[in-house]
């Protein structure tokens, strides 16, 4: 029996481990699929991490190293190159690696911190051939930053998520020509600073309301056809334009990697593709917690670390038998607010709720009402965009006696 098993040794897993340790848990085991701790941070060599958490600007590997050192200092155990195959509802974990073979671990508590993966091109339905030269932005990032290979010289990027923007700059710095970044939506999903320093600095055009309609080339990619899309996101044929290129990078969204959560019968949200959790980040499966990008995709790693601290602390309380649910208040959203995390409240205390809006809104009021339509919280925002996670803190006395909470956006 192991007290706490953490699936994933990225920023979420390491932060959760450290938080649980600080609450007195010593029997901790991190299971990591890759050959080092740190997760995807190791390939994010650009700076901009840690301002929130450490008050300094760090690169991805430097941010990871801070947590790796915390894990080392506490002698928290971890197994690298270890793939978890199955987690049961009663917390029996089956995993495999080269030295231990296939093995089972019984855990008192489990923290899911597997992160997310990129939406692949298969999910996109682009017409044309399937030549080589098409990569997800993250794969290209791994090739360039960790393996030292350039995937191509003439690049088009589809999707303006942060990884796509970062890769536009990275490929340019290494001598490639990035011809365009196409974004289906009329706004970018990336941070404004990345549009400025990754595209504008290098005069890379950002084509909003544009998509790739056709892929050309037999063995190797020879070019793509791009087109403007109308309001319902359908390509307008007369705006089609051919761009000659040998590489297409896709930065079209991230999907929480929840195959293991499913084997553990954890209830998943169809909006976030992550688990449904309470304020302690506990799932419907008792003693199984989730945090980081496996729960919902975050904008900043700093917020991942913070959320993982909640999960680590709660798991420690669960192991010590002090985590008691007293209420059951679901949090619902109105559609303009796409989702919230947590999705339910099970303890009466001050609760910070994170959420994303579904569209770009100006001058809105974020209202929280109870089941009788009474306003329990209200906050004004000059701008709310889907690319930026919002958070509000609802005070304990406002939650008392509520049966349900609704988060609404009033324009």
């Amino acid at each position, binding site marked *: 029996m192991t007290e706490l098993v953490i699936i994933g040794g990225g920023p979420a897993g390491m932060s959760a481990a450290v938080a649980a340790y600080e609450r007195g848990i010593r029997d901790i085991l991190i299971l990591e699929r890759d*050959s*080092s*701790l*740190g997760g995807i941070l*190791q390939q994010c*060599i*650009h*700076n*901009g991490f840690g*301002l*929130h958490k450490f008050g300094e*600007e760090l*690169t*991805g*590997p*430097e941010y*990871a*190293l801070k947590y*790796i*050192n915390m894990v*080392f*200092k506490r002698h928290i155990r971890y197994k690298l190159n270890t793939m978890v195959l199955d987690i049961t509802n009663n917390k029996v974990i089956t995993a495999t690696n080269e030295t231990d073979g296939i093995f089972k671990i019984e855990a008192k508590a489990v923290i899911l911190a597997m992160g997310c993966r990129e939406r692949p091109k298969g999910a996109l339905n682009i017409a044309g051939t399937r030549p080589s030269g098409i990569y997800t932005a993250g794969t290209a990032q791994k090739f*360039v*930053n*960790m*393996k*030292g290979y350039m995937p191509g010289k003439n690049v088009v990027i589809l999707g303006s998520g942060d990884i796509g923007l970062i890769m536009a700059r*990275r490929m340019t*710095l*290494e001598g490639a020509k990035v011809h365009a970044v196409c974004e289906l939506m009329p706004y970018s999903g990336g*941070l*404004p*600073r990345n*549009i*400025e*320093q990754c595209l*504008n*600095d290098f005069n890379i055009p950002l084509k909003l309301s544009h998509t790739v309609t056709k892929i050309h080339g037999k063995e190797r990619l020879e070019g793509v056809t791009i087109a403007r899309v109308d309001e319902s996101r359908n390509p307008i044929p007369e705006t089609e334009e051919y761009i000659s290129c040998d590489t297409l990078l896709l930065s079209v969204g991230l999907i929480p990697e929840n195959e293991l959560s499913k084997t553990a019968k954890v209830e998943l949200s169809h909006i976030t593709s992550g688990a449904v959790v309470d304020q302690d980040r506990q799932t419907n499966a008792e003693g199984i917690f989730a945090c980081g990008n496996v729960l919902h995709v975050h*904008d*900043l790693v700093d917020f991942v670390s913070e959320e993982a601290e909640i999960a680590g602390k709660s798991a420690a309380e669960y192991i010590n038998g002090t985590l008691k649910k007293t209420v059951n208040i679901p949090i619902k959203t109105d559609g303009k607010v796409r989702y919230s995390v947590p999705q339910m409240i099970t303890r009466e205390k001050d609760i910070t709720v994170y959420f994303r809006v579904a569209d770009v809104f100006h001058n809105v009021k974020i209202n929280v009402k109870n089941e009788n339509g009474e306003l329990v919280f209200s906050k004004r925002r000059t701008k709310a965009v889907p690319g930026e996670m919002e958070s509000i803190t609802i005070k304990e006395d406002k939650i008392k006696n509520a049966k349900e909470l609704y988060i609404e956006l009033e324009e």
Partner: protein
Amino acid sequence: MKRNLTCIVCPMGCSIDVNIENGEVIDISGNSCPRGAEYAKNECISPVRTVTTTIRCSDGSVIPVKTDMPIPKDKVFECMKIINHTSIPLPVYPGDVIIKDVFGSNIVATGGTYNDNCGCKKQGRF
């Protein structure tokens, strides 16, 4: 002359308006912190950028590096050239100075050899 900038100091990405007269910044608005004001001022007079890239090691692998200070924006590609024409012997540990004084900044390793957990153990930094 008026200029509108997007601040790149932190993820907030404030939209900053700068008023410039005779090559001097006379008014800055829209920033939410002093660092934003400093960025806006620099950006109008002598823009700088931190460069993050990789450097080739003697065994063919690559290690992430950065300029430990921002360098002039128009020197970024020259800086890349210098880094890409250098090969370094192993081992490398995070924080090691790889090349000294490149446009007023040092090129510093931000990671180490990947297969030993960034060399933290050997480094004795924990």
